[in-house]
């Protein structure tokens, strides 16, 4: 290799080639993915998330939640995602078109959160706030997302967490989630991939044809 200019052009071409193949080509395929209007339900999927959820997404990003939690369900039969109750069907590209930042995640120290807002078991705002406050199993508690304050001279907050057992705050004190905590929980509750798009349905192997009866 003697010709410096040719070498430089080659370097640049190699980079552009991989960029075009890995990023530009999928962009052609996916950038215009449209929501799906369901005639029976009378609305288009995926649903738009509330504004508070968009703020919660930033809290999710800045705390680095994606280090331990994924947000993608693999198809039934590939891993045990369905058996673990993380989702009934495979996640598809259309599930994510309204998310400002997509956190597919890198490892599963904790459970997958693709359907954090669509769990069958009763799993509401209060449950998630308590989980963030107390932690569970391998998950640390995020007490800094809560404020413990005195109720000596004022009315208790409507948002105060009902805590029992050894988590009960001292008498005259209450634990109130901050705005960040409530936004984070709104984000988690907005994560729902319950609608099954045609492309998420597994391809059934063709059934052997019955011989026709006369």
């Amino acid at each position, binding site marked *: 290799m003697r010709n410096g200019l040719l070498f430089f052009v080659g370097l640049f071409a190699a980079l552009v080639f991989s960029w075009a193949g890995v990023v530009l080509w999928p962009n052609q395929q*996916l950038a215009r993915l449209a929501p799906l209007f369901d005639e029976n339900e009378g609305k288009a999927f995926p649903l738009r998330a509330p504004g508070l959820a968009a703020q919660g997404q930033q809290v999710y990003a800045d705390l680095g939640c994606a280090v331990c939690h994924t947000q*993608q369900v*693999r198809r039934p039969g590939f891993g045990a995602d369905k058996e673990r109750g993380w989702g009934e069907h495979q996640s598809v590209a259309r599930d994510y078109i309204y998310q400002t930042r997509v956190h597919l995640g890198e490892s599963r120290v904790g459970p997958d959160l693709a359907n954090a807002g669509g769990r069958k078991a009763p799993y509401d705002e209060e449950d998630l706030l308590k989980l963030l406050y107390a932690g569970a199993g391998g998950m640390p508690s995020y007490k800094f997302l809560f404020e413990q304050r005195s109720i000596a001279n004022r009315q208790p907050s409507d948002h105060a967490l009902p805590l029992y057992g050894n988590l009960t705050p001292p008498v005259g004190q209450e634990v109130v989630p901050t705005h960040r905590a409530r936004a984070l929980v709104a984000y988690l509750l907005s994560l729902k991939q319950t609608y099954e798009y045609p492309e998420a349905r597994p391809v059934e192997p063709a059934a052997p044809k019955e011989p026709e009866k006369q």
Partner: protein
Amino acid sequence: MTSAQTEISEVDSTARFPLSLLLAFAVLWALAGGALALLNYAQTLDPALLADCALLTYGRVRGMQETALVYGWAGNAGFAVALWLLGRLSGAPLRSLNWVVVGTLFWNFGVALAIGGIAGGHGTSIVLLRMPAYVQWFLLAAFAAIAVPGVLAWTGRAHKPMFAAQWYAVAALFLFPWLFSAAHVMLVVAPLRGVLQPVAEAWFAQSLWTLWMAPVALAAAYYLVPKITGRAIPSYDFAGLGFWTLLVIGAWTGGRHLIGGPVPAWIATIGIVACAVLTFHYLVVAINLSGAFRRSGFTLKFVAFGVAAYVLGGFADAVLSLRSVAEVTQFTWMSQAQSQLALLGAFSMIVTGAIYFLVPRIANQPWVSTPLIRAHYAAAVIGVIALVGGLAAAGIVQGRDLNNAAVALVDIATHTRPWLLVAAAGQALLLVGNLVLAAHLVRLWTTKPETPAAELIREPHAMEASAS
């Protein structure tokens, strides 16, 4: 003294201050990153550790650790080695070194700002680009300043034909700004839509490795191995093919992180195929650099371990990207094992070898103590093996358990715990090794240069420029 004068030319001595500055920052960040990594593993073992401290939340510490090691340690050390190589191979002293000093100060201010920003909650949560958006252009400008002497040395080289070490060093210097700014635009300024973001993230993370870190390490290895052994590179004709395979195919392997994910299946398939094709590159590197295993002196020992880790990592990528294997190892500690093998096993070991080679030359004085180098080598080797082995074993245990829905997540944490303890011990040893290096550097820089490195250095100056 005479033999030293033939070796310690002005090529080395003029660059003494800027390169020493880069190396000092590199070692500082290696210590900071190692300490943060150790804290991170401790938090894995005991989730309650510092959980009340928002600045040191597990997810943020991971980002801080990664930024310190990749942009702090690997960045600074890579600049020092690449610039020194380009200077030597051009056969003339590096020019415009003031740019390096200014760029280095700004780069390291940027890295500190990035780590502080992640701690303060401004991080982006993008793998290998977790620093706040406002730091990213800053680093790019600092990079441009640092690269100036490298570009001048390359364009003004005395010998037109280039040696393999030059291809790799020039590729690393030119491609980093392109891919870094492309990622900045696609992921931060005007984020792509939906799952195209993770696709672009995979492309960037892979490119950062195959187009920046790996080329810097290979540049050092391709220079040092023939130089120290005094033998030509075997099958050198294939080196060019190996180089272009890495550059053209390397970034395509990113898709393997998306196996089974919500993206078109062909993206993962191309990633798997690219991993298989890339084994050709690793094979070429293994053959070309087999001279490293002749083992004479500490530089070659470090380089040999790094080359072995590099080749092993390449073949491991090819195996672990297969769908049936990925079904188990995806989303587990195994991916962490792979990235640590690449960063701390391959890159860091080769570059540390280069540091042990270049510091006496730019400082014009030998290392103070051989036992210290031996201690560093032992700590680094055992540390990398324990860290990567522990993480890989934890990954296999975790992957098997995850695919068995009867095992609760809490039990998985219990099952992986012993292996993560091994990994944490490995990380601690690596930190000790870097402390030894830091102490040694301080001793070398504070002793008066009365005994030149004559004994250590015997090769004639003629080797460098005519090696192609």
